[in-house]
């Protein structure tokens, strides 16, 4: 199932159970997968039109009135475009608003550079009080939605909206503030977020044949980062690589480096090398930006050699 379809199903269930859960759009309900919910929940779904700033502050107002609003747009318009509204109306005012940005990084594909946010995590991460969560597959997303609903406070969810390869099995137990160990290893830790998680896991399994024993940890919540898990794993393996669909400045790499700053452990990065995106399909973009499965394998080898 597409991630947005699973997301919409979860929202529908929440709205059914709690009339204070509501969803606000800025003319991208179709892209977010929630357009069909408008007929079913006419008193909980509101389209603000192409006015993201207004949407963010309206949501803050609704939250101050006891509602639990979710606002949706593409990642650049759900973050950098409304940075001040997130900071002041939502986080500074301590309002319980959930912000959903779809099509993160290169997954914006044919919408190209204008819609391809490489900086959204960096923008939101520097605002006090924000939680940043990026699900990797449908299982994790479905487990996370009730936890996000239950968590009182502002959250930014960075949502890949199409079909993703499975990472987690049916027994998965989700904790919003604990990173997930996907594979144990001793030579290197790869901290990975978002759409490259499956590839990192596959690459680690392949490299085992070469005798390289790689630990893989999915950092689904980038802020607050699970310091305990990050530090313990880095100390154990002695070398770290971060892999992300985001600028290497401001995102997972920065968060991991900040966490390990006193640890004297080398931290390598694979991500978007401080450049804007461009138009293209995923295979082209991954190649153009150096983010293919082969690039991941190579980056793991190099990072393991930094010890």
């Amino acid at each position, binding site marked *: 199932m597409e991630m947005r379809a699973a997301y919409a199903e979860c929202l529908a269930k929440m709205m059914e159970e709690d009339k204070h859960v509501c969803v606000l759009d800025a003319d991208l309900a179709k892209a977010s997968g929630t357009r069909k919910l408008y007929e079913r929940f006419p008193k909980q779904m509101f389209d603000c*039109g192409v006015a993201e*700033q*207004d949407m963010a502050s*309206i949501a*803050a*107002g609704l*939250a*101050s009135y006891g509602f639990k609003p979710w606002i949706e747009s593409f990642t650049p318009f759900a973050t950098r475009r409304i940075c001040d509204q997130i900071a002041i109306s939502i986080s500074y*005012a*301590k309002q319980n608003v959930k912000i959903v940005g779809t099509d993160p990084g290169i997954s914006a594909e044919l919408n190209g550079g204008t819609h391809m946010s490489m900086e959204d995590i960096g923008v939101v991460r520097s605002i006090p009080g924000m939680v940043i969560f990026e699900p990797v597959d449908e299982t994790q997303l479905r487990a996370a939605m009730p936890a996000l609903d239950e968590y009182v406070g502002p959250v930014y969810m960075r949502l890949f909206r199409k079909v993703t390869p499975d990472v987690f099995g049916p027994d998965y137990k989700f904790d919003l503030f604990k990173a997930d160990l996907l594979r144990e290893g001793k030579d290197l830790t790869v901290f990975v977020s978002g759409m490259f998680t499956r590839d990192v896991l596959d690459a680690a399994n392949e490299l085992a044949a070469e005798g390289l024993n790689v630990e893989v940890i999915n950092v689904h919540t980038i802020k607050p980062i699970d310091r305990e898990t990050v530090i313990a794993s880095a100390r154990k393996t002695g070398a770290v690589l971060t892999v992300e669909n985001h600028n290497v400045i401001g995102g997972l790499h920065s968060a991991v480096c900040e966490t390990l700053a006193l640890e004297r452990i080398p931290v390598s990065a694979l991500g978007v090398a401080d450049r804007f995106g461009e138009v293209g399909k995923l295979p082209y973009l991954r190649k153009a930006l150096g983010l293919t499965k082969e690039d991941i394998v190579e980056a793991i080898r190099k990072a393991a050699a930094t010890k």
Partner: protein
Amino acid sequence: MNKDLKEICKDIRCDIMTCIGHLGVGHIGGCLSIVELLAVLYFEEMNIDPAEPRKAGRDRFICSKGHAGPAVYAALANRGYFPKEELLTLNQGGTHLPSHCDMNLTTGIDMTAGSLGQGFSCAAGIALGSKLENDGATIYALVGDGESQEGQVWEAGMFAAAKGLGNLIGFTDYNKLQIDDAVAKVNDIAPLGDKWAAFGWNVIDVEDGNDVEQVSAAVKQAKSYRSTGRPTMVILNTVKGKGVKWIEDLGAGNHNTNVSEEQAKAAIAEIRGED
């Protein structure tokens, strides 16, 4: 009642002068211009209870021009939300009374504001929330005239009309001055009433927004428009720095200016008609 309201206006004005004079500096012009509105709302029209400041279904006031915090605090203290002595803590480290309105710090403040334009959208969200709860509350929101240059004010205006928020009453503190110069010179917002009417709002133009009787009548009229299902904008033609001649005479220079305790004392005498 109106005579009382006039006295209340004097009390609020004097308290603004006292706390800003005590501090030595503040957003004095845009505080003094909105006193009559605050007196009418907090002492005549709003369904509120200082003993239960967070009561569900109460009327709310969102001061989107958040820098007028000291004026709102003076009104709240006079209405009994907190002791008047607390006004002297304005902007002191650790205070509950920061320069810009903060709902998490100050008893009686309904929404945090300060980054201009945002409070008005928050008010639209609050009005939508009240409509959904069907609790009968009236939501009052004040924007500045300089603030009305923010695009977000008009985004909120469009939304409020489109969603039929007849429970939302907006006010523009149309004192014609902003930090850099006259509003008309910086980036004119006129014709303001025509703009709000074009955005689908009922519009009431108050010739003298510092005449408490005119303001009172306008708020009553605005409340009667609730059944139109459209929000109402009350344009208050005010004087920035109203009530203290030297501050009025500063013009655009009175947005945020130094006020000594001696100047504050003299101003209070002027407000009380004792000079």
